[in-house]
């Protein structure tokens, strides 16, 4: 994938959040809290848990459908970051060789189970986070964080990160294009030039940061970014949040999947 394509891909995630569905209309605070609770619940499962995690896919799938988010787009994003999770879990099957189960005569070590559990948890948490961003404008998330009591410095850092990510990427794109245009098909003199490009990008960024700070001072900046209240928690938000909490509690503390399995076993 070339740099240009990558760039427009990030823009796409951002554009998804401008849609108008009932998921998008929920108060950002409700969604942020729901996502955090979801993450905590998923992470809280013990390391050999697989079956009990399954019902938690219901939440991302529901959000995807109701929020009209393209499934393949989210799956691709999850795959892109999956190496992190794979590397965390990849040694489990080697280190943890206790036999945990025998399925059709093949013994399955506990390591494989914990590896699978890590992958499931990873897919759940990352998709929940991606869906939060895809269904909520980024500024909405930031305002929500601020109003939920996160420190001002932290929130303004993410705000700027988001705002200038696009500007910086454009800047990089211009530099890369300029290099490509004059390197005539070769790799543009390789590493040495590349290192210098990064240096230049850094200097430009520092300059820009200074100018932005000047612009902020010119408009009376005093350390905290002030914002207006723009949304109110209404009934649908409360309903969403309580349904979420109920859903998380039920599937965390009652072995529902196991129960279904038992019932099925008895039937047949």
């Amino acid at each position, binding site marked *: 994938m070339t740099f240009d394509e990558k760039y427009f891909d990030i823009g796409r995630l951002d554009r998804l959040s401008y849609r108008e569905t009932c998921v998008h209309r929920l108060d950002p605070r409700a969604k942020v809290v729901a996502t955090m609770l979801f993450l905590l619940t998923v992470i809280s499962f013990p390391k050999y848990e697989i079956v009990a995690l399954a019902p938690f896919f219901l939440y991302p799938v529901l959000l995807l459908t109701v929020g009209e988010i393209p499934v393949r787009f989210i799956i691709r994003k999850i795959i892109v970051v999956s190496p992190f999770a794979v590397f965390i879990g990849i040694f489990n099957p080697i280190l943890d060789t206790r036999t945990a189960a025998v399925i059709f005569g093949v013994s399955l070590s506990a390591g494989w189970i914990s590896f699978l559990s890590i992958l499931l948890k990873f897919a759940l948490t990352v998709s929940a986070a991606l869906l939060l961003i895809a269904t909520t*404008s980024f*500024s909405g998330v930031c305002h929500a964080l601020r109003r939920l009591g996160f420190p001002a410095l932290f929130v303004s850092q993410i705000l700027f990160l988001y*705002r200038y990510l696009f*500007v910086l990427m454009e800047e990089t794109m211009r530099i890369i294009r300029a290099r490509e245009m004059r390197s005539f098909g070769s790799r543009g003199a390789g590493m040495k030039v590349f290192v210098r490009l990064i240096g230049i990008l850094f200097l430009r960024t520092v300059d820009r940061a200074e100018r932005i700070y000047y612009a902020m*001072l010119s*408009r*009376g900046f005093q350390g905290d970014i002030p914002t207006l209240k723009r949304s109110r928690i209404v009934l649908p938000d409360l309903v969403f949040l309580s349904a979420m909490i109920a859903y998380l509690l039920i599937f965390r503390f009652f072995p529902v999947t196991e129960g279904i399995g038992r019932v099925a076993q008895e039937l047949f």
Partner: protein
Amino acid sequence: MSHHIVEFKEVSFRYPDGTEALKGVNFRITHGESVGVVGANGAGKSTLLQHMNGYLMPTSGTITIGDLILTKKTRREIRKKVGIVFQNPDDQLFMPTVFDDVAFGPLNLGMDEASVRERVRKALGMVNSLALQDKPPHHLSCGQKSAVAIASVMAMEPDILAMDEPASNLDPRSRRSLITLLKTFKHSKIIASHDLDLILDVCQRCIVIGGGAVVADGPSAEILSDKAFLEENSLELPLSFQRRS
């Protein structure tokens, strides 16, 4: 009214690396005047503008804005009076949505919610950009960004408006509407630009900067029609004069 006066007295400025950017600049701009600042690249125009609200402090000399002399203490007050529009709107629009950006200044002035909304509405209306208010700045075109950048400064209702190359990124129509807009702004304005036709259109007075000092100060129509003088200062006749000759 004394509070819209800008006065530079023997202002000099030396950058930390030793470059002398301003060498004894003198001028006085009174209420309601619109002044163009022109000069070659690197003549010191931007440096001059950055002194107007105390981002840079003069190494020697004094700057008076209204009835305040620029010092580290009066800087904050002065920033409320002088609105500066930057050359690159990306540097100026730092908030995630257009609305937030225009509201940034008024909120910092400590205004209440209703009046902030009113200010934002007025400022965006002035530049015909009300429809953009929920958009993030990175989805705007250059012209739209410039318009919003102007609105974000106008929302502070400054007494004095200073602009650095306001028309450099604009297509002809946006440039024309900018000129119309500038003409409706009744307070003092100071515009640094290479667009001499814009200066001729908007500013009655023109200050030519060369090598960090004022080399000419007078009516735009007079200065900008002096071909020999302009060429001496790496400038040329405005296009509208070229056609005539």
